[in-house]
């Protein structure tokens, strides 16, 4: 395990602490303890791939963004990210590269978020989740009056989409498409497919009915699918 990892994660956490005046002393102490303990365990094998502060800063930014979206509360999000980073520090031995580090902290973050969402029962008022403009969204671009596909909107065959999962460019398109979803659709879609909460847990956490949830997931899937098809799977054929 690289002591460099510990150093960098430590630097991230310290940076966080300086920025956050509200952090309570108990948390501060537990972080400092974790840093001190891990610092002493450092050994000689250093992974140079992890000496990349830009990568770690970027990772933290992604974590905060994701947690904020999921929890709709920047303080809760900062806390979850911080706890995930502390968790990562405690198990720093398991990292074997950037991918492993990222997988690891996101797995911890996902669990933290799932815990918070399950505990709090309701993080937001339903009103903030179901805005009129999104509810009023109509499908006339996709479907005709009888509810059948408009001729130019009919989903095409994607061939073997699994191959795309190994292509960097695909992930850039995926991210752009995900960011293009209305915030609330992205949020419930990620709760379902990434945080892997059950449908009833999502409904409780965000205070919506099963029907609301099904409608939102349906819309998010239609949109995401369309975006991926236009910008990735059929790219070039349209040009």
């Amino acid at each position: 395990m690289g002591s460099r990892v510990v150093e960098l994660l430590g630097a991230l956490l310290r940076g966080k602490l300086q920025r956050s005046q509200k952090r309570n002393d108990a948390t501060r102490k537990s972080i400092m303890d974790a840093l001190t303990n891990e610092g002493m365990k450092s050994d000689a094998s250093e992974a140079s791939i992890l000496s990349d502060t830009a990568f770690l800063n970027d990772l933290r930014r992604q974590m905060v963004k994701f947690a904020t979206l999921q929890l709709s509360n920047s303080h809760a999000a900062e806390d979850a990210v911080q706890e995930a980073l502390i968790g990562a520090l405690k198990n720093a031995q398991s990292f074997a590269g950037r991918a492993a580090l990222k997988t690891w902290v996101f797995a911890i973050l996902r669990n933290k978020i799932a815990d918070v969402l399950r505990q709090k029962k309701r993080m937001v008022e339903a009103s903030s989740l179901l805005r009129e403009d999104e509810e009023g969204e109509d499908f006339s671009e996709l479907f005709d009056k009888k509810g059948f596909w408009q001729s130019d909107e009919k989903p095409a065959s994607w061939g073997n989409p699994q191959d795309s999962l190994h292509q960097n460019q695909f992930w850039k398109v995926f991210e752009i498409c995900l960011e293009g979803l209305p915030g609330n659709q992205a949020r419930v879609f990620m709760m379902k497919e990434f945080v892997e909460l059950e449908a009833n847990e999502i409904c409780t956490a965000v205070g919506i009915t099963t029907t609301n949830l099904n409608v939102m997931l349906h819309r998010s899937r239609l949109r995401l699918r369309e975006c991926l098809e236009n910008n990735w799977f059929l790219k070039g054929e349209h040009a």
Partner: protein
Amino acid sequence: MMNCQQATMLISESQERALSLPEKMNLKLHVMMCSGCRNFSLQVPFLGKAMRAYASGKDEESKKK
């Protein structure tokens, strides 16, 4: 027969709950005749798979290859 908007709704819901037998049969009938919804039914599980792969480091792994 159900239309495409209803069919895609059921396909989406099938990710969250088990469809009833009549729902399944109606959907099957529609999908047999509609290539758009057939493609949609293959794409929806892929979206979930991609979402789980995203941010869990799969993009980083691919960079090393």
